[in-house]
């Protein structure tokens, strides 16, 4: 796939000066909108997860006239709800040496020096307000007997800064945002449309002015106009078909915005989570994550010998390889996600994996049960053990769990500036849908933090600066009509093929291809192969897909087909981005770029930049945003 390199791109919104003053400065320089004018300004928010739900609620509270959309039957269902572990905040309630600066430092380092310092510092600053806000809403965080909030250390952090609500932190935070949103719906500041899927952005005179959506019950194509559009539509991990995402998660909203001119940044940065339940068969429809907190007490191992078919209990101690403890003595089982995932892949590639197909490693609680007692282990992890048993039929108190890495999160997303505005004026992107804060690897318990930081605190301030110039007047009818026609013709085209393969069968094949060639380990050869294979498969899709039913009804096959079509195009850009970035960094591991110990080797000379892709009729154009590190010195990560 050919691409050209365009002019560099810069974030022009982050103020200069000491990093701890930048957000304060920006808040002050962002223009305010008079309360009486706010209700004349229409804002569309697409998606109702932590980012979208909190943004719509907060914009409603501020007095804007908000319209919100989600594809589910209720805004409470968004996939943020499934986050288990917790949410980071630099509260330093433990007095264990945490600070805003340390959270900032850990996040920049954890992201393998591929995130903007200004953004990450702001995230760490705002993190403390999120906990206050959530507690005031009645989010039932875990507490200690003194009545204060409990915290735990999580995902390789050496301080205890993760707030949690048993294994359901995402659920409780999302319900907090959902309840705030429903309050605004009742107040009339937010109009909610459930079971609506966004299919295009309307760009009129250079500004994002609305969206085209499909009513998923009636099939009606609707136009909704506004002064600004906010996308909070999540990540694109489902390009791999199998991931820990919900079945409905898709790239369509951000992809179609990309087609309208929004740059797509770092699409190849995907996070593979090390502790998921392995695939059990060809029918598998999704993968289930087991919280990373299990690694606090579980020990990861595989048999020392290849193809060892013995039951785990029959393998003596000296014939087990506790490989994480062996390779990373300082962090052991608690190394960051990308490192744990790749280590699991390596031992399985050596033929030492366990379970069906040899694609699994043991996560063993035997020693923890001996040390702490079964009751204590049950108290800590009981619900996770139950979940595991429900899915696999095996009891992890008696037999070690089998785990394997699975696609979990995408750090890439639409490019945004410090104000969270994309390259289309008036189109803002928040939460996982943007690329902004996690660099090449996200730390555990930071996704919830970023979603809520964007939605409750950052966007509501920065969007005001844009809306201060509004209302923006009439929307060009031609632009609306063109978008509507584009949406309709794509639907008609899908229905017209009437071939012999279902959308899911194509999606599965694409996902397998992406997993094999653009998954945990990428090489020039594998990526070139993928770039050859994807267009062929896409062509077959458009010639041979079978979409039953009609456009004018609830048609789940049609919904899936549209999403798969966009996944093909995204997959191609991901592979191109991965091919061009010949270094390894964070979740992006290029086999050609590793040190003597097999660890990821960055190339800061050539790649200390964000890759922002523009889509043009002549092919992709790469715009580089240089990354500068004034505060955190760039070093090679080491967890040994």
């Amino acid at each position, binding site marked *: 796939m050919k691409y050209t390199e365009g002019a560099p791109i810069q974030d022009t919104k982050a103020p200069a000066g000491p990093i701890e003053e930048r957000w304060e400065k920006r808040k002050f320089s962002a223009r305010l909108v008079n309360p009486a004018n706010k209700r004349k300004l229409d804002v569309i928010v697409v998606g109702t997860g932590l980012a979208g739900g909190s943004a719509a609620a907060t914009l409603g509270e501020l007095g804007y006239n908000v319209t919100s959309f989600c594809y589910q039957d209720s805004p409470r*269902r968004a996939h943020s709800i499934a986050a288990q572990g917790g949410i980071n905040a630099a509260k330093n309630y433990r007095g264990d040496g945490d600070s805003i600066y340390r959270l900032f430092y850990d996040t920049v380092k954890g992201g393998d020096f591929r995130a903007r310092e200004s953004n990450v510092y702001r995230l760490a600053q705002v993190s403390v*307000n999120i906990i206050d806000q959530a507690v005031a*809403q009645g989010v039932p965080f875990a507490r200690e007997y003194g009545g204060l909030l409990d915290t735990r250390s999580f995902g390789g952090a050496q301080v205890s800064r993760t707030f949690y609500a*048993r294994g359901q932190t995402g659920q*409780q935070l999302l319900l907090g945002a959902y309840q705030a949103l429903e309050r605004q719906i009742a107040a009339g500041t937010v109009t909610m449309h459930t079971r609506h899927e966004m299919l295009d952005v309307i760009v009129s005179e250079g500004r994002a002015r609305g969206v085209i959506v499909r009513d998923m*019950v009636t099939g009606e194509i609707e136009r909704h106009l506004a002064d600004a559009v906010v996308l909070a539509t999540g990540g694109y991990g489902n390009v791999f078909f199998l991931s820990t995402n*919900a079945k409905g998660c898709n790239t369509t909203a951000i992809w179609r915005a990309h087609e309208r001119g929004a740059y797509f940044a770092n699409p190849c940065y995907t996070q593979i989570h090390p502790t998921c339940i392995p695939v059990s068969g060809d029918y598998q429809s999704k993968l289930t*994550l087991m919280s990373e907190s299990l690694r606090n007490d579980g020990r990861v191992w595989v048999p020392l010998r290849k193809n060892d078919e013995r039951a785990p209990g029959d393998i003596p101690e000296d014939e087990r390889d506790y490989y994480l403890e062996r390779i990373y003595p300082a962090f052991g089982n608690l190394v960051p996600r990308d490192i744990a995932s790749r280590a699991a892949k390596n031992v399985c590639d050596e033929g030492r994996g366990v379970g069906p197909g040899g694609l699994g490693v043991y996560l063993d609680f035997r020693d923890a049960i001996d040390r702490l007692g079964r009751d204590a282990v049950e108290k800590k992890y009981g619900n996770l053990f139950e979940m595991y048993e429900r*899915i696999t039929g095996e009891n992890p108190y008696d037999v070690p769990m089998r785990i394997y890495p699975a696609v979990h999160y995408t750090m890439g997303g639409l490019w945004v500036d410090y104000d969270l505005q994309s390259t289309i004026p008036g189109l803002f992107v928040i939460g996982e849908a943007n690329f902004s804060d996690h660099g090449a690897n996200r730390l555990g318990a930071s996704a919830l933090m970023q979603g809520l930081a964007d939605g409750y*605190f950052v966007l509501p301030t920065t969007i005001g600066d844009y809306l201060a110039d509004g209302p923006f007047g009439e929307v060009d009818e031609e632009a609306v009509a063109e978008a509507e026609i584009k949406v309709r013709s794509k639907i008609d085209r899908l229905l017209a093929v009437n071939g012999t393969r279902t959308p899911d069968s194509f999606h599965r094949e694409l996902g397998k291809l992406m997993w094999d060639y653009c998954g945990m380990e990428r090489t020039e050869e594998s990526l070139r192969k993928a770039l050859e294979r994807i267009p062929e498969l896409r062509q077959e899709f458009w010639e041979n897909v079978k979409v039953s039913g009609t456009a004018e009804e609830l048609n789940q096959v049609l919904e899936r087909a549209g999403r798969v079509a966009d996944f093909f195009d995204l997959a191609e850009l991901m592979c191109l981005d991965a091919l061009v970035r010949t270094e390894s960094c964070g979740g992006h591991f290029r086999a050609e770029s590793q040190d003597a110990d097999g660890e990821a080797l960055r190339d800061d000379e050539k790649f200390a930049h964000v890759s922002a892709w523009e889509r043009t009729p002549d092919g992709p154009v790469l715009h580089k945003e240089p990354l500068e590190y004034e505060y955190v010195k760039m070093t090679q990560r080491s967890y040994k």
Partner: protein
Amino acid sequence: MNLTLKVWRQSGPQDKGRMVTYRVEDISPDMSFLEMLDVLNERLILEGDDPIAFDHDCREGICGMCGMVINGVAHGEQRATTTCQLHMRHFEDGAEITIEPWRAAPFPVVKDLVVDRSSFDRIIQAGGFVSVPAGSAPDAHSVPVRKEDADSAFDAATCIGCGACVAACPNGSASLFTAAKITHLSLLPQGQPERLNRAKAMVDQMDSEGFGGCTNTGECTAVCPKGIPLDTIAQMNADYLKANSK
């Protein structure tokens, strides 16, 4: 495994609907219930039939989107389990399985097994929140909360809003759903200022949506995938009575 499925098919709200029988073969006991339906649907698409519409999303038991009445029981016979977490190993080879949507007047059928649960959102709109605009919160440690209260509030707050309680109730009552939210917020200091108004507004909304009354049959908590306890309803009634006697 080979199974016979009797599935409720209804093309839309106006259609009368009927049970339709399907045979599925070579089902793995490790499949989830929804994966078994995926297999059937893939076949129906290729045969040019309309696949069975059902709601689902996270497929890990937390979003609350899925839900069907399986052999007469909401989410099936396995306790504390959503439909998506139910696995085929719990069924006998050769079994006949009936699959129906939630049935309750305030949950009209949209298509096949998909129902409209927006009445639940309107109950939350009536008062299922704490009025605290973003940015106005005091420090999180300014109000300590007894651990026991926080834990009980959490237990009530784990409701996933799936609607199984309504489907299982002989009266089609939404008491367990409504009580779970009222109890969650009643147990926390942050929920106190609006406590009685909240109970009144939410219960009144529940009634106006056409849900039935509670007669303490307890079917709701028996099918609840999150095991929301029945005593939340007592809490709701207490708050509601207090609100009305003021």
